[in-house]
């Protein structure tokens, strides 16, 4: 049986007509297998979905109120980085370059003392890549937040403001593929069969 066609049929990516032709082309034994897999998929679709219990919204808001209120972010600074590019070595992670009060990064004034941020530069060499980004726990695992810039020799870089004394996990996203930094000093299992690079400041 053509596994690719079987997968497309089970994924509902064939038209009705195409699906009928595919099933008709199968041997009786393969038809039996295909229908068993379709039954399995339909059963999964019917598995009961969990619904919030009474009072969920109230409990969720009670937890929300215990958390630090959000502030307009340094990401607005990150979108227009003011740092000049360093000559980043291929595939090397550089932690740079001084400490800044967040007030220097455009946040609104506040009476509270502001934590200091270290600017870390992440670098990854991928000369043939069209797009490289970093996804990490410090940006909610959102690669679109921290797109990297292509530099000389196909070295992609991005600067991110991080807190000293913290431990961060991150991955590079190279043309949609999540890649562990090969030069990270440490990595940990991500629970999904891959490994996150670890950065400790």
């Amino acid at each position: 049986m053509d596994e690719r066609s079987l997968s497309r049929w089970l994924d509902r990516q064939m038209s009705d007509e195409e699906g009928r032709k595919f099933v008709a082309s199968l041997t009786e034994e393969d038809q039996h297998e295909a229908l068993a897999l379709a039954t399995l998929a339909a059963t999964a679709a019917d598995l009961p979905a969990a619904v919030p219990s009474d009072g969920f919204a109230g409990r969720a808001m009670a937890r929300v109120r215990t958390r630090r209120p959000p502030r307009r972010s340094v990401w607005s600074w990150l979108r227009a980085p003011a740092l000049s590019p360093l000559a980043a070595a291929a595939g090397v992670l550089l932690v740079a370059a001084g400490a800044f009060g967040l007030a220097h990064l455009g946040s609104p004034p506040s009476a509270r003392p502001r934590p200091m941020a270290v600017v870390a530069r992440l670098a990854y060499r991928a000369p043939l890549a069209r797009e490289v980004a970093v996804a990490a726990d410090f940006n909610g695992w959102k690669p679109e937040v921290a797109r990297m810039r292509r530099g000389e020799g196909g070295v992609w870089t991005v600067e991110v403001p991080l807190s000293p004394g913290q431990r961060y996990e991150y991955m590079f996203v190279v043309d949609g593929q999540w890649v562990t930094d090969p030069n990270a000093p440490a990595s940990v299992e991500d629970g999904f069969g891959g490994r996150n690079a670890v950065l400790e400041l």
Partner: protein
Amino acid sequence: MPGAAFSDVIDTADRDAVERVLDGDTESFASVVRRHGSGLVSLCARLVGDRHQGEELAQEALARAYSSLGSWRGEAGFRHWLYRIARNCCRDYLKAGARAESPGDLGDEPATERNPERELADRQLGSALHVEVARLAPAYREAFLLFHAQGMAYDEIHAITGVSVAALKVRVHRARLMLRRALGNLVDG
């Protein structure tokens, strides 16, 4: 297209709520909880295989999202951003080894009305599938559940997990084949 218009309305409402919260109105986040609470509970319960833990993780995801609202960039879909946080909460929970070996309660049993024999067979298959899905490796379990049980499209799963669509298709298909082998005669109908 009504679906797209509805999504636009939700998206606009989310953006408005985010702006109000960032202006200091914490209580505006309640509208985010109302709009997305059910979806998050369903998602988390699927991923960890337990309704009560799913609800706990959904609450945690909402709280983390609240504190991180400043890092959400408007061009990325809010719902996908929220779901990604929830997925990572589940991932952290599973990584910590807290998941029970046997699958937990996922929800109320569907009501049985007619054809009791068929209902019994379906329920047996559903229960067996629930058990076997919980035994899959995390990457396969996640892809299978999001596609077949949550009914998400591949590009939506990609937006939440960061896994490429091609890799997701392979994972889902391999998961189906593994489950087929594990369930044997139960799916021969």
